[in-house]
């Protein structure tokens, strides 16, 4: 590798750094990025403003997290922040829903209207009749859940079948290990790769994601590249050849939706060949014998057939992973996007557990909220403000026992069912914030469309007018992007200050909106004068005020220790071990058993598959996977940003040359992708990176430049691939088959465009 340059720049973040200065006629403000627009990463940024206008965003070279680097979404941010289509002031609907008629109103009128409508519904039907729905924001769960509780509703959710994004993996880890774990790329140390306690992972498995594009869940994807340069070898599990796969020692081109089978097969090999860490397994795990017996039901020959991965590659991957010390797994959405996601996650986390990689340098480190500062998960105030009656009415509680074990969301599929049937009680209104579900996360979006249309009152809070806002909103509130707001970025490794540097129209931050509206419903729940006071309260564990955090340069790194399970740091009682009923990592989960779920990992075919539904496969002879990430877009966002749109202008479907030839397709052709539920249009990209039996279609497309009013809704129905995805969660209530379906394709005829 080239002589390290950036790593030497990352120094322990101990000294105070200036947070704002003048430079060349610009004011430069140091801070953190985070949603919105959608960003899971939260890099250190320098925001350049002139006369209050954001003109440039640079990476902060002194920030240990990204070390001066930035992805295109932040680099192009000024265009988004200052975009003429931004929502600038509150609006109320004029005319029918879907006609796109709006009238500007004041914030006071907006709050008054929302207060009155929500209060009337509370009186007539009860507070549970209002749904509070978010998208994959970052610091939103904390504030939106508290707004729901302040109002009195237990129904905080997201309109995604099986809440299939990280929730399945998080639930599995919390249930079986009592904590989260992430691949250790030195992110907990502010001196990063120079830290003497850190070790380079000998092997990292990239499983079901393309981290260099996604920067998902507080993990800067190019850390993988940093590790590769330092010697890390890769195993990549992906139906597509990603760039990382092209550089991997082993690329396992898996059939979509069969990750659980692969993990079980690898477990069987590692156990049978004695490659596991016997000492760790004896001392720190529960149920190894039972796991071994279960894994034996997945011999490699059978797993090769299920997964379409050659036997020798599965054997090689199992051996390479088990023999590498340390080894880590960087996993992603691919695991969540099957209805058996929790079980797949259980099998994969068992892999890193039995090989002794739990909380070791360069392995899978268990992580807590930095200084206990949590602005990333929901449930803030659940016990303080909800009545017992309201708690008991949370949707899904009686169907999915997971919801009784600390998972405080309302189960989305059941929410939709309740909206449709009015059972066990009617749903009358929705508060939709940081989400554009009919263009993005919703399965079968027309089903959600029908259900939302029936509501009496809908509020949408967003940066832009979206198909969701046009179709349903009675009131639209303009939300601020991160340079327009103060805030906290806190997940895993550190706490960061988000600093406001500009103001667009009358937009307000999601946090300010929730604070101001929340006060009306329950002033005790929102006792703070302003958001800064609220952030200071949230920062209690860090022992610093929001202003104090900002003024010391905006980043704080707590100390980090490995092998916390040996030191009594995982459990509240201070005893060594893990925070589970047995005090061990539960390869056999006593909690899943209690919930009536399989205590051991297993594999089940996706609901539609060549083997489970062979008759359907004859009619729909291609496996459809969806949602591979693109550089310039965060899900349904950024499609109106010219620089980013230029990088990927249309919804695209990747098709192997062999398949393309069979269907007489070439690059740039438009095809319909169809199954028994519906169809969506996509532009063909012929590429050898995908198996001839599989096609991969982009998700979350709409055309901000097209006509907003119905029936167009920005051309949404032509291109939303989720029209082929059913609402069908797994037995845990988490996970759904967004990425493993069956379909057919045919050319778009002239006149259909």
């Amino acid at each position, binding site marked *: *590798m*080239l*002589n390290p*340059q*950036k790593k030497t720049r990352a120094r322990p973040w101990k000294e105070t750094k200036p947070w704002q200065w003048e430079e*060349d006629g610009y004011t430069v403000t140091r801070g953190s990025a985070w949603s919105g627009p959608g960003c899971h990463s939260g890099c250190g940024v320098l925001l350049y403003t002139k006369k209050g206008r954001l003109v*440039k*965003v*640079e*990476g902060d*070279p002194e920030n240990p997290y990204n*070390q*001066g*680097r*930035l*992805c*295109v979404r932040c*680099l*192009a941010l*000024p265009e988004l922040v200052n975009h003429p289509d931004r929502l600038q002031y509150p609006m109320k609907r004029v005319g029918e829903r879907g006609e796109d008629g709006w009238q500007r109103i004041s914030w006071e009128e907006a709050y008054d209207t929302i207060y009155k409508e929500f209060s009337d519904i509370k009186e007539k039907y009860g507070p549970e009749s209002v749904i509070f729905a978010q998208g994959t924001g970052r610091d939103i769960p904390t504030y939106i859940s508290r707004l729901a509780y302040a109002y009195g509703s237990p129904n905080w959710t997201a309109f995604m079948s099986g809440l299939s994004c990280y929730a399945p993996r998080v639930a599995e880890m919390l249930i079986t290990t009592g904590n989260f774990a992430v691949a250790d790329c030195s992110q907990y140390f502010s001196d990063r790769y120079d830290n003497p306690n850190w070790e380079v992972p000998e092997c990292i498995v990239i499983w079901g994601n393309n981290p*260099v*594009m996604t920067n998902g869940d507080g993990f800067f*994807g*190019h850390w993988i*590249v*940093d590790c*590769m*340069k330092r010697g890390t070898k890769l195993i990549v599990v992906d139906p597509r*050849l990603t*760039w*990382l*796969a*092209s550089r991997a020692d082993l690329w396992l081109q898996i059939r979509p939706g069969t990750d659980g089978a692969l993990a079980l097969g690898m477990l069987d090999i590692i156990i049978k060949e004695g490659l596991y860490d016997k000492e760790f397994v004896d001392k720190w795990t529960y149920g190894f014998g039972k796991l071994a017996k279960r894994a034996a039901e997945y011999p490699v020959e059978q797993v090769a057939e299920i997964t379409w991965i050659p036997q020798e590659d599965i054997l090689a991957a199992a051996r390479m992973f088990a023999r590498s010390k340390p080894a880590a797994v960087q996993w992603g959405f691919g695991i969540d996007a099957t209805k058996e996601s929790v079980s797949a996650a259980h099998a994969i986390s068992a892999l890193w557990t039995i090989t002794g990689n739990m909380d070791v340098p360069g392995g899978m480190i268990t992580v807590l909220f930095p200084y206990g500062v949590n602005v990333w998960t929901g449930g803030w105030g659940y016990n303080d403000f909800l009545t017992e009656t309201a708690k008991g009415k949370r949707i899904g509680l009686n169907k999915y026992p997971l919801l009784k074990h600390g998972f405080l969301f309302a189960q989305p599929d059941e929410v939709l069912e309740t909206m449709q049937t009015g059972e066990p009680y009617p749903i009358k209104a929705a508060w939709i914030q940081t989400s554009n579900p009919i263009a993005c996360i919703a399965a079968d979006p027309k089903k959600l469309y029908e259900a939302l249309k029936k509501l009496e009152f809908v509020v949408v809070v967003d940066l832009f007018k979206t198909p969701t806002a046009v179709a349903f909103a009675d009131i639209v509130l303009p939300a601020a992007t991160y340079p327009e707001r103060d805030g906290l970025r806190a997940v895993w490794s550190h706490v960061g200050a988000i600093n406001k540097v500009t103001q667009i129209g009358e937009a307000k931050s999601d946090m300010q909106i929730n604070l101001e509206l929340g006060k009306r419903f329950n002033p005790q729940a929102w006792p703070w004068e302003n958001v800064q006071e609220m952030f200071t309260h949230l920062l209690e564990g860090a022992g610093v005020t929001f202003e104090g955090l900002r003024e010391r340069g905006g980043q704080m790194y707590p100390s980090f220790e490995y092998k916390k399970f040996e030191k009594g740091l995982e459990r509240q009682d201070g005893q060594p071990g893990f925070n589970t009923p047995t005090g061990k990592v539960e390869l056999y989960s006593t909690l899943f058993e209690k919930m009536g779920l399989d205590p051991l990992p297993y594999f089940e075919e996706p609901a539609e598959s060549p083997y489970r539904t062979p008759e359907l496969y004859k009619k729909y002879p291609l496996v459809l996977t969806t949602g591979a990430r693109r*550089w*310039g877009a965060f899900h349904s966002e950024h499609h109106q940003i*010219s*620089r*980013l749109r*230029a*990088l990927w202008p249309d919804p695209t479907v990747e098709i192997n040359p062999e398949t393309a030839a069979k269907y007489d397709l070439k690059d740039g052709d438009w095809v319909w992708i169809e199954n028994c539920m519906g169809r969506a249009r996509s532009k063909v990209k012929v*590429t*050898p*990176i995908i198996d001839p039996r599989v096609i991969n279609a982009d998700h979350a497309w709409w055309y901000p430049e097209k006509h907003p009013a119905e029936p167009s809704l920005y051309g949404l129905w032509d291109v939303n691939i989720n029209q082929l995805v059913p609402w069908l969660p797994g037995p845990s209530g988490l996970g759904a088959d967004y990425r493993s379906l069956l379909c057919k394709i045919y050319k778009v005829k002239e006149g259909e465009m």
Partner: protein
Amino acid sequence: MARYGLLIDYKYCTGCHSCEVACQREYNYPVGKGGIQLVEVGPWQINKKKWQYTYIPVPTELCILCGKRVAAGKQPACVQHCQADVMRFGLVEELAKEMVKNSHTVLFTPR
């Protein structure tokens, strides 16, 4: 006269486009124009285990090696923001020494 250049380690370039957009932003170039442009080679299969899948950012005639940034003690916009950290700015003689040590590098002297 001292000549400066850009050294690129294309073994690790992931094709993330940060160099392009950083440059466009720095100099306010419109879409489709800029001081550096990414070239994709592949992806195609070489043999059962090996793929050709390479990205190389190529400076254009518009590249001025960010003289003003460098004078202010910063890296050129593309070099700083390169997510894979595969770009180096410096004196050609110094960069050439890195080439001796590393395969898959290319040295550009745009000016």
